[in-house]
């Protein structure tokens, strides 16, 4: 059926496969760094120390697993919503090669210590330049497909896709500006507090343009596809869209509360973070209201279960985030384990659950077959949710406990605990987090097994027909 439309779906399969590979790498390295914090003997200097592995973990997670699968689904969704084959399948195939080369190069160069140190913009300039090429060819391909579309109306998912394409481009170019001194070393073009402010304008909007708008595009497309009923309100989606992309850009300095960046920038960031609750929950309500009369599907349809749990974690994430942006609360939990707790509810709960749903939906269709085992899908679901909750909850408790200890004073005003006294108390939580991570890793392995079996089953089933 797909072939008849002439859709370029081989490249979608390719991106799905490779994003799953990098997703597994991200989770494996995540488990390794979580173990290193608990047992420092597991550091293997010089290449495999925590300081070098943590950026590999975040890059594999955000760029390998996140961006990789967004590329797959942007291609998939755009072709179907425009009823138009991809503008250039050849360019897309080249993009797949380049994508894998870039992610592999990223992992190797980071292990070698070639690192710009700015979070989520660590890659040294030659690799960053390849990222730019990758993004440009991706954007051109999608935009041209949309321009040449057969379906006149653009569904809300396409709006989010377009915003992602420009947003990431602007952010990446500005924050990566640098002064190269050799092929493997460069300095940031900005200094001190300026550099910090540019970095977190970028950093928080990487959350917006990579961990929010693409999964929302995917959510808005696959929820109606999975339930069989349309999205509750297109209008609400449109209003939420414009206010979301307007407000996000003001909030970067909530990562810099109480630092030397100007106070008014921090205050604006705090105010806009709180306002962001509205457009964020616009999407959540749109999801929930689309389920009116359909809640029984939560039991019967595993795709819906992934999507609705995903949007629920998004809803929690966008309440927790604004609270962290309030100065008084930030004074308390900033720099502690609380923040990794927040981060992983977003990445493991929201982003990954939505991606799992999209993969479960598309793979059987792309390979013209049925899912190999629904039992395993459900097992995957529960292990992933439990693993993620163990991770986040242990970290929230750890963060609050350490914050309380760090701020405790004696009657004479001196501090009650030394730094090390607060750190020692974290070990049990770090053990708990590692356990949560291992459970999540197990869920990933089950997921991959199920998908491989499904794809192989499809190939076998269709083989005789072709002959």
């Amino acid at each position, binding site marked *: 059926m797909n072939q008849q439309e002439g859709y370029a779906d081989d490249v979608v399969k390719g991106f799905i496969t490779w994003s799953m590979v990098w997703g597994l790498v991200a989770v494996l390295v995540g488990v390794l760094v979580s173990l290193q914090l608990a047992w420092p003997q597991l550091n293997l200097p010089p290449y495999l120390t925590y300081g070098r592995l943590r950026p590999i973990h975040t890059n594999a997670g955000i760029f390998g697993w996140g961006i990789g699968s967004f590329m797959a689904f942007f291609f998939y969704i755009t072709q179907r919503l425009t009823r138009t084959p991809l503008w250039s399948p050849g360019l897309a195939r080249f993009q797949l090669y380049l994508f894998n080369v870039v992610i592999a190069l990223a992992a190797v160069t980071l292990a070698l210590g070639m690192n710009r140190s700015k979070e989520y913009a660590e890659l040294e300039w030659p690799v960053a330049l390849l990222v730019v090429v990758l993004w440009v060819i991706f954007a051109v391909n999608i935009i041209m497909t949309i321009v040449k579309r057969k379906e006149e109306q653009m569904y809300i998912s396409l709006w989010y896709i377009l915003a992602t394409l420009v947003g990431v481009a602007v952010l990446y170019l500005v924050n990566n500006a640098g002064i190269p001194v050799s092929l493997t070393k460069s*300095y940031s073009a900005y200094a001190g507090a300026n550099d910090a402010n540019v970095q977190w304008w970028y950093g928080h909007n990487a959350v917006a343009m990579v961990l929010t708008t693409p999964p929302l595009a995917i959510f808005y497309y696959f929820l109606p596809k999975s339930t069989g009923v349309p999205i509750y309100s297109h209008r609400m989606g449109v209003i939420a869209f414009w206010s979301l992309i307007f407000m996000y850009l003001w909030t970067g300095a909530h990562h810099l509360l109480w630092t030397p960046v100007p106070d008014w920038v921090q205050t604006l960031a705090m105010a806009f973070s709180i306002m962001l609750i509205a457009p964020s929950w616009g999407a959540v309500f749109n999801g929930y209201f689309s389920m009116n009369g359909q809640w029984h599907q939560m039991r019967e349809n595993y795709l819906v279960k992934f999507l609705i749990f995903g949007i629920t974690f998004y809803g929690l994430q966008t309440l927790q985030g604004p609270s962290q942006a309030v100065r008084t609360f930030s004074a308390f939990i900033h720099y502690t384990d609380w923040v990794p707790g927040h981060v992983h509810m977003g990445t493991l709960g929201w982003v990954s659950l939505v991606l799992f749903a999209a993969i479960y939906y598309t793979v059987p269709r792309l390979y013209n077959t049925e899912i190999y085992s629904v039992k395993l899908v459900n097992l995957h679901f529960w292990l992933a949710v439990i693993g993620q909750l163990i991770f986040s909850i242990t970290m929230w408790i750890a963060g609050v406990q350490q914050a309380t200890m760090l701020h405790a004073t004696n009657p004479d005003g001196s501090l009650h605990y030394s730094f090390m006294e607060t750190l020692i108390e974290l070990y049990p939580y770090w053990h708990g987090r590692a356990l949560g991570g291992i459970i999540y890793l197990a869920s990933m392995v089950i997921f991959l097994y199920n998908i491989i079996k499904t794809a192989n089953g499809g190939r076998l089933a269709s083989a005789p027909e072709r002959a």
Partner: protein
Amino acid sequence: MLEKKPIILLLLATAVILVGTIVTMVAPFKWINDPKLQLAGVKPYTPLQLEGRDIYIREGCNNCHTQTVRPLLADVERYGEYSKVGEFVHDQPFLWGSRRTGPDLARIGGKYPNAWHYRHMEDPQSMVPRSNMPKYAFLKKQLDSRLTEKKMKALGFPYTHADLAALQGKTEMDAMVAYMQKLGNDIPWRKASQVTVTGDMKNPYQDDKTVIQEGKALYDKECAQCHGADLKGGVGPALADIDKPDAEVFKSIYAGIESGGMPAYGESLGKDRVWKLTTFIKYHQGK
């Protein structure tokens, strides 16, 4: 209407994104670069310090350590004077970090003697048994200084050829320690906050054996790394045979001995616990 016009939608989205960008990212350059915020004493990095900083970046120390002290009681008492905009003008990139798995390092310069850093970098657990900082013994290798001059030029930092020649024979560890000792020391905050000990200088626990246990526990945690588990010395002098009056021992611990590399413990431990430590040390005298 926009539902049908992708290019207009794209341009409009770009414009919407740029509003917040201009106000909160572009405009602050003017505020941050205000000449009134410059601090006279803040010096660029020397070639050795810059190489140390680059190794700090290469090893990703910023994944565990922040470099900015917030104007909050818990930060200021634990780490020192809060950070000022003007102190970071030479930092390309900034290294404030986002996670304090380890303590803040913005004011680490001058906190410890060099010898402490060498031992700690090589094997943190030998100084702080339950630390989870990785061992960096591998930094004891020849420093590669081929790019140093180019780096200094790229950043516009002043240097002399003698500075560059002095890099010969230095190790990466030397560079790292030089960088650590520079951090936070451009403003004279240690002298400014030098605690003066006032009030009654009489030991409330004189010969009180019940506090020895607590004193020992404190000593093992805070002091043994430098003065040795048996008080026989190490980075710091032996304390076992100290024969100074209680008040003087108290003062050394409470206010520190800045010139000699003895940290001040008054702010973090408080008077009461410092007297207990004094009692413990004096109790050991001659044993």
